[in-house]
């Protein structure tokens, strides 16, 4: 997703030290055939490589993943106050 990397250059994200996204049970992902989170996330935060990786640093806080995961397996919280995505225009 080279294009996405290019578009992300135009997004300001103040990255917090700790992830604000985690899984209830990583084993559920193994049995999840379609792994839709790897597609519906607008910035490709989730990708599969032996296990589900979460690049929380790219999250633009659209709010889709806690509801889009068919197994309700994603716990998404707000990044700490003042962190995360920020728009100036």
């Amino acid at each position, binding site marked *: *997703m080279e*294009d*996405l990397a290019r*578009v*992300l250059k*135009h*997004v300001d994200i103040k990255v917090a030290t700790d992830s604000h996204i985690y899984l209830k049970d990583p084993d559920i992902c193994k049995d999840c055939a*379609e792994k*839709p989170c790897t*597609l*519906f*996330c*607008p*910035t*490709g935060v989730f990708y599969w490589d032996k296990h589900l990786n979460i690049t929380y640093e790219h999250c*633009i*806080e*659209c*709010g*889709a993943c*806690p*509801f*889009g995961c*068919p197994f309700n397996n994603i716990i998404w919280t*707000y990044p*700490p*106050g*003042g962190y*995360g*995505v*920020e*728009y*100036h*225009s």
Partner: protein
Amino acid sequence: MNKKHFDCIVVGAGPAGSTAALTIARENMSVLLIERGTSPGAKKLFGGLIHRSAVDEIIPGFWERAPVERAIVTDELWLLDQTSAVKIGFTGLNYAKPPYNKFSVIRYKWDKWLADEAVRAGAFLLNNTVVRHLVTEQTGLKAKKFIGVELDNGEQVYANIIILAEGANAALTEEAGLRKPITAKNLSLHTMELYSLPAKKIEERFNVGPNEGAVIGAIGYPFAGAIGKVGIWLQKDTIALTVGALLDQIVTGKLNPYQLIIQTKKHPLINSLLAGCKLLSYGSHTIPKGGYDTLPQLFSNGIMVVGDAAGFISGRRGADLAMLSGMYAGETAAQAHAKGDYSTKVLKAYLNKIQDSFFYKDIKASKESSDYFHNYQDADFLITKTANELAYEFFHVGLENKKEKMKKMKNIALSIQPVLKTSEDLYQGVQHWGFF
């Protein structure tokens, strides 16, 4: 935080929260407005439009001092096929003059301005702060009341009334037990890119005057098997392109929001509108689309829910409804304050105000809309395709006589019958696109 107790705490400084805080501050009550971003609006990217009539009730003549971008004079709906579009539209130049109709705004500026209005009226704004939990007090065996909030540094702050203006995710509203869990069926996901283009070029390209704007809604492309919407919105020297669809259809249709943007930009008719534009920003957000059946309980002892958190979306309107609901909650808080009673007995007045509002009636009237979308995932696509085929036929200069031509067109129209069985369906379809 030095001060530990307020008359009222508002969670979230979006359109709903800032209006609630403004209304309460105007009543000389103490109000704390809490925002997780570095400033109000910093988390927001949207097309989008502010509808004048509702906002005018809250801040009369707001356009004189608010950061509005362009007064919208042109509204178009495009039924897009691969290389053609049937365009339905209206341009009203009277909308370029007071009292106007709609304005394009940039949320970073609009939300900040609105929160500043609240601060000028006496509200206390706390940025960079997430409310993690609500604080309750047991008032009986089963009864409880809401008495405060817990911040992300673990601190607790208290108030007689909490107003939840936290937007579509509504995590605290759920924690409060006021709504059932949200599902993908009840949300749409909208993704957008923002581009810069000099004001003069925008005006030439979209045929509008200085300070005048246009908005184009498009359906049928690039979505097949999903009810999707494309939007093009003009600000002073920026253009927003948004692409959105119901989240469950994005999930089951294996759609990728970024690819949808890319594909939309490739459409020749959209591509030419965006020629020479420079990419400034990229964003995405959910919009509640559950409709009437998923509206939460709007109040309980010491608490009220406003704006997107309460699911107040009607067609393309959300920000102005958020503001109106914020005002109603603020007024109710003032009544409760005057009586010294923050229980449901007084807060019920908020529900009454909402039930009397035009938008509640609209939301109620469009009760079947989400069902419709789910039953006819292909409807947009098929209607659009058919309309374009009909238009090609209509405008085509051929050699057949009128009667033959009519017959041809009738056959095209009949081909969508399996999907749209009755004209009632067609009417419902047009209604639910909700563009005008």
